[in-house]
């Protein structure tokens, strides 16, 4: 209901206006017909009043003279508004031949309304030469003459008709203005508002840098949409910042781990190895068959230090695998080997094929590390979730870019369900694997495409720009 408030308002106003207009029109018509019947009965009355008064018996010659009984009767009727002014109407006594026998003052000019036929029982509406409207009725008199009564509608009803015309006109103008107003409201406000609402409904907050919500003449809408547009841009920038922040974090983490691993390796590990060597040297000078406590101490010392060396080595491995320095091919083979060993208990071993285009295999260490981590994540996903038994990893040139793809023969998943999702959201919903892959893809400044359907295999394509010449090894 709230949603259609504007529509409701406009509908109500429009309906009300239309109703007012129609009622006015109806009232006007009723008034018109009332006026009409009033005028008819008026003219009939006039004619009857004249003919009903004592029979006009005057001679034809006398009729036009003042003081005749006919004139007397005119005088009697002169209080009637229609006889007050020559324009308002008049009475004419006409002979069969159409001659005026007598007339109310100034009524002679009404003779053209006489049609020469008689009698006319029902009043009729006639226009005279000037275009004024008259109601006319003709009645026979006892002496064989006729009385013609005419009343001017134009003259008598002019003030009233003027009021009505103004009323109707103003009602029409008001209605038209309201309708035009409503249309403009609809066209300039309701339509753009609906457009804005619809667009806002599918705005990818943080995904679209700039959106255009409104482009029209209403400054309020312009202001509103520009605020929202700014919000969208800000949210995009914030999202970008967050992404960059995460990428920086991952990068910083990798480099710190790498550095730590190197330092551990070059420092602690080398020292422990040196200590092992010294203990082994010391053992050289103690006869091995002797059951001396010194020999036992040295054996224990060597064992302890060897264990320490092993632990440090595995810390280094966990922090940052040293074998990424051997290049992508070796790194992938190492991961493949480890995965195959890790899933050794599985009924059929995992077979991992590595195919690298020789020309593109020489990548800088951070690229190798990123691709290795992607592969590690993707391959372990394939085995764990997809039950894959064969995984193929490839790197080749694709136009100017490099294409890294990992494909398995597992049971797949509905990749379309994840299309367009924010990978950071995936992280919060427990899909850390894809989020981790996505972070490395971003480190490579690449794009990722996952092609999979339930029951079919899964393939992850990562397209990334080749390292700039300064970066290559």
């Amino acid at each position: 209901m709230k949603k259609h408030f504007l529509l409701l308002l406009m509908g109500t106003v429009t309906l009300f206006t239309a109703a007012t207009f129609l009622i006015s029109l109806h009232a006007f018509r009723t008034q018109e017909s009332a006026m009409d019947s009033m005028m008819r009965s008026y003219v009939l009355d006039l004619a009857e009043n004249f003919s009903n008064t004592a029979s006009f018996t005057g001679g034809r010659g006398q009729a036009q003279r003042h003081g005749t009984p006919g004139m007397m009767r005119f005088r009697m009727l002169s209080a009637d508004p229609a006889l007050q002014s020559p324009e308002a109407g008049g009475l004419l006594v006409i002979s069969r031949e159409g001659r005026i026998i007598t007339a109310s003052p100034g009524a002679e000019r009404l003779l053209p309304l006489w049609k020469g036929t008689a009698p006319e029982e029902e009043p009729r509406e006639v226009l005279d030469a000037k275009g004024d409207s008259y109601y006319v009725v003709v009645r026979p008199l006892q002496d064989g003459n006729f009385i013609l009564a005419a009343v001017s509608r134009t003259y008598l009803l002019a003030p009233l008709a003027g009021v009505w015309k103004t009323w109707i006109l103003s009602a029409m103008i008001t209605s038209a203005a309201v309708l035009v107003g409503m249309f403009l409201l609809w066209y300039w406000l309701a339509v753009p508002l609906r457009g804005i609402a619809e667009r806002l409904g599918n705005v990818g907050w943080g995904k679209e840098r700039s959106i255009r919500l409104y482009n029209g003449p209403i400054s309020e809408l312009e202001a509103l949409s520009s605020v929202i547009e700014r919000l969208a841009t800000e949210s995009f920038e914030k999202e970008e910042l967050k992404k960059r922040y995460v990428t920086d974090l991952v990068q910083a983490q990798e480099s710190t781990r790498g550095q730590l691993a190197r330092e551990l390796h070059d420092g602690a590990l080398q020292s422990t190895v040196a200590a092992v060597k010294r203990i082994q040297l010391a053992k050289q000078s103690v006869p091995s068959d002797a059951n001396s406590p010194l020999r036992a101490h040295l054996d224990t010392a060597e064992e302890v230090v060897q264990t320490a060396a092993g632990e440090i080595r595995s810390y280094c491995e966990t922090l940052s695998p040293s074998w990424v320095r051997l290049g992508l091919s070796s790194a992938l083979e190492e991961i493949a080997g480890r995965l195959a060993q890790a899933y050794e208990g599985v009924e059929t071993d995992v077979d991992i094929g590595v195919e690298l285009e020789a020309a593109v295999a020489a990548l800088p260490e951070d690229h190798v590390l990123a691709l290795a981590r992607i592969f590690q994540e993707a391959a372990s996903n394939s085995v764990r979730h997809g039950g894959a038994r064969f995984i193929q990893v490839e790197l080749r040139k694709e136009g100017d870019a490099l294409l890294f793809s990992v494909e398995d023969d597992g049971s797949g998943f509905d990749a379309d369900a994840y299309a367009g999702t924010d990978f950071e959201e995936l992280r919060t919903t427990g899909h850390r694997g894809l989020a981790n892959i996505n972070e490395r893809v971003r480190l490579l400044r690449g794009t990722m495409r996952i092609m999979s359907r339930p029951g079919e295999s899964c393939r992850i394509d990562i397209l990334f720009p080749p390292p700039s010449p300064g970066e290559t090894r």
Partner: protein
Amino acid sequence: MLRILLADDHPLTRSGLAAWLEAEEGVELVGQAADGESAWTMLLKTQPDLALLDIEMPNGSGIEIAERIMKRKLPTNVLMLTAYSAQQYVMASVRAGAKGFILKSAPFDQLRQAIADTSRGIFYLDPSVSLVSDEAPAEELSEREKEVLILTAQGLPSSETARLLSITKRTVAAHLTSIYAKLGAKNKTEAILLALKRGIVLLDQLRFIDGKGESL
């Protein structure tokens, strides 16, 4: 007298090893280097029978030196000496022409054995490099399987292996599966290392076809 060159950037480890080598019978330590560049210079000058090379060194890794030795066809055998136990370090060393691979922390008895083996051209692999099925009895590989294993060991992708042997990629995969089963290996690298260790495949058969495989 076996003439040996030792290269390791860590002074304490180097001096410990040097002390043992100097005391060892039948062995002559002809030089000690602390980085790749000086190791190479010394190697050219002294022409030793065996070079004990650390993998991670400043100014050129042990693997790079081994590759140069292979390229120049110098008579020096290489024994890699490293703190890393990852299988790929072994593979990288083997591809670079090293005859043996031993961890720095290995007891002197093993080092003695490694020196003896590698100087005679026999592949030596440190027992600590984890091979899951070292003791599994090995079945004989067919000639075709050996070919597949050797090409794979050279670092060729399976499509290339398939092309060279005029078979399909699927067949290559089938051969590899059979090879793993016969050797008791769990993956490609392990299969290669097991085959090398048992002499099914010889080191010389793994030399790179130039330009193929990964450059280091």
